[in-house]
């Protein structure tokens, strides 16, 4: 039997059983569609988050004690002298020291627990934080260790509601601060935490906490951040008397890292999430495959007479096997194509909705996922079609004809 005839026989059998063909495809359509949708949505979100981070973090470098991210690491390693030395590096633009005050912020009966940064005016420049009302912290605040605070938009709303926060006195721990400035919202739903901190002068925080060491420092690199990170690393190793020519990070008592490196970690996390969603969608494809086998087995029973007839007029085992296998692969391939189209369409729709909600959102179509889903769909047809096809091929023509 010619290949053309196999295709023709399969096509006419599928046409004669439209409902059954459609139902068979449905499982694959849903499976492939969800693989494509899940992976694309995952990728799109990853892209979105990375874009958000990149928007404020290009050539931003952070230096912190190892205890900041590793249990058992040093927390008291960055001194004010370190800060001044870093400030003098030619590869460093603007650097800001930070000391956290870990106490509650209150106004009247309102009580909140935002991060309270003791820092300098450079901090706002480094993170691109903009003022909505009042003023930022300045050098005089620091030299005088004044009791003033700049608050973020969300905290301003939570503490004061519709009232004007400027000139009001808030309390952090036991000390009162006059609100001199309110920041604009970052406007990013993923980075909402950045709309909550309270900022007070570095010198004030130092006096209040009695901390001799910095919580961390943040700086803008001049040009390539890698050079800056290298400069800081060798400077601080020298200052901390750490002999580390092999560049073993575990020997250091500090970490200097660009925010772009941090985005790689975010990338890995979201990649894992994407893979997980893809896996779940893949399971639905497997279920779809089992559905195909189920329907095809029923179809073999239902078409016993037809198979018997084909054998009676001269079809060989291999002819029947090929026809049934072809039917299965054709159905799953067609289901795969429809699934890809539907998954992509739904992904585009969701992206449009996300773009409305989030401001900007780019739909990322994963070509790899498309390809993999299509291969999986065809493989599903081949694997789950094989058993029913073999069963059909091995039917005896007599029994098949007698069957009612």
């Amino acid at each position, binding site marked *: *039997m010619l290949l053309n005839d196999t295709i023709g026989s399969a096509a006419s059998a599928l046409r004669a059983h439209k409902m059954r063909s459609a139902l068979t495809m449905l499982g694959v359509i849903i499976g492939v569609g969800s693989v494509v949708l899940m992976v694309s949505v995952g990728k799109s979100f990853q892209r979105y988050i990375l874009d958000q981070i990149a928007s404020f973090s290009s050539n931003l470098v952070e230096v912190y004690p190892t205890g900041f991210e590793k249990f058992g690491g040093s927390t008291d390693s960055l001194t004010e002298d370190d800060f001044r030395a870093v400030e003098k590096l030619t590869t460093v633009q603007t650097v800001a020291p930070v000391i956290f005050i870990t106490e509650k912020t209150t106004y009247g009966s309102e009580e909140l627990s935002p991060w309270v940064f003791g820092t300098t005016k450079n901090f706002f420049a480094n993170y691109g934080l903009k003022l909505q009302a009042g003023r930022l912290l300045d050098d005089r605040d620091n030299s005088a260790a004044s009791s003033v605070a700049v608050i973020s938009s969300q905290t301003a709303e939570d503490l004061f509601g519709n009232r004007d926060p400027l000139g009001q006195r808030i309390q952090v721990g036991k000390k009162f601060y006059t609100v001199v400035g309110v920041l604009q919202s970052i406007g990013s739903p993923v980075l909402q935490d950045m709309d909550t901190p309270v900022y007070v002068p570095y010198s004030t925080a130092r006096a209040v906490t009695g901390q001799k060491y910095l919580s961390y420092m943040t700086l803008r690199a001049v040009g390539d951040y890698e050079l800056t990170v290298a400069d800081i690393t060798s400077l601080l190793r020298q200052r901390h008397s750490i002999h580390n020519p092999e560049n073993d990070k575990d020997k250091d008592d500090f970490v200097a890292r660009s925010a772009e490196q941090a985005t790689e970690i975010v990338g890995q996390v979201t990649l894992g999430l994407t893979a997980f969603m893809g896996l779940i969608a893949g399971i639905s494809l497997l279920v779809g495959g089992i559905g195909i086998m189920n329907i095809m087995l029923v179809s073999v029973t239902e078409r016993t007479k037809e198979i018997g007839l084909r054998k009676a*007029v001269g079809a*060989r085992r291999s002819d029947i096997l090929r026809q049934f296998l072809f039917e299965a692969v054709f159905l799953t391939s067609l289901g795969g194509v429809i699934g890809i189209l539907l998954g992509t369409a739904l992904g585009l729709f969701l992206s449009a909705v996300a773009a409305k909600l989030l401001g900007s959102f780019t739909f990322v179509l994963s070509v790899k996922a498309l390809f993999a889903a299509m291969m999986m769909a065809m493989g599903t047809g081949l694997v789950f079609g094989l058993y029913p096809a073999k069963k059909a091929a091995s039917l005896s023509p007599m029994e098949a004809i007698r069957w009612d």
Partner: protein
Amino acid sequence: MLKKVVPLIETVDLQKSYFSGDLETPVLHGIDFVIQEGEFVSIMGPSGSGKSTLMHILGFLDTPTSGSYLFRGEKTRVLEDDALARIRATRVSFVFQAFNLLPRTTVLENVILPLLYHPTIPASEREERAMKAIAEVGLTERTTYLTNQLSGGQQQRVAIARALVTEPDIIFADEPTGNLDSASGLQVMNVLQELHDHQGSTIVLVTHEKATAEYAARIIQLLDGRISSDSRDFKRKDAKTNTDLK
């Protein structure tokens, strides 16, 4: 001296048993007969007489347990699955009681079906051959109809066209009028008789009814797996003039 004619079909002590576990159920107990090319033979017997089993063996759908079956003088017992399929594709055809047409498919597609599996007839000749076979059963005007739009008699004539299309050596008709009313049955018998009388087709008609069997020229009667009579000594009915088919 007369040249010896090789018979189309010759069986020698043909036996068939079915086995289920250790239990042997013999169905045919040694069948010997000869069918020459161009004959119209009825194989007649009550149900359980083994006539269907015999037809399946003669039609290469089944193989005998012992004895030999010679087709054009050649022994056929040792054939493989694919070889049997090839003989079914080229040498023999069937007409079944239940028509066995493909559902929701056109008359033309049904008649072309055996040609899809034919090893030598080229694809380009299929439609022409199918149209010719359809014309022979008088259904040219119904070529594009779906089979479920036809009456029972018309469906059986489509099945006969499908049997003719490969120009087989022999056509087996298994109770071809069993599902039809007498008028349609008569039409079908008429088509078979004309094929025999005008085209010289060899036809084996399997039936349990004497009235139907008598449209053939020879009746082989089976009882309990043995031939109980083999006779040409009766008046053949003519489907064109006879109306007593039940």
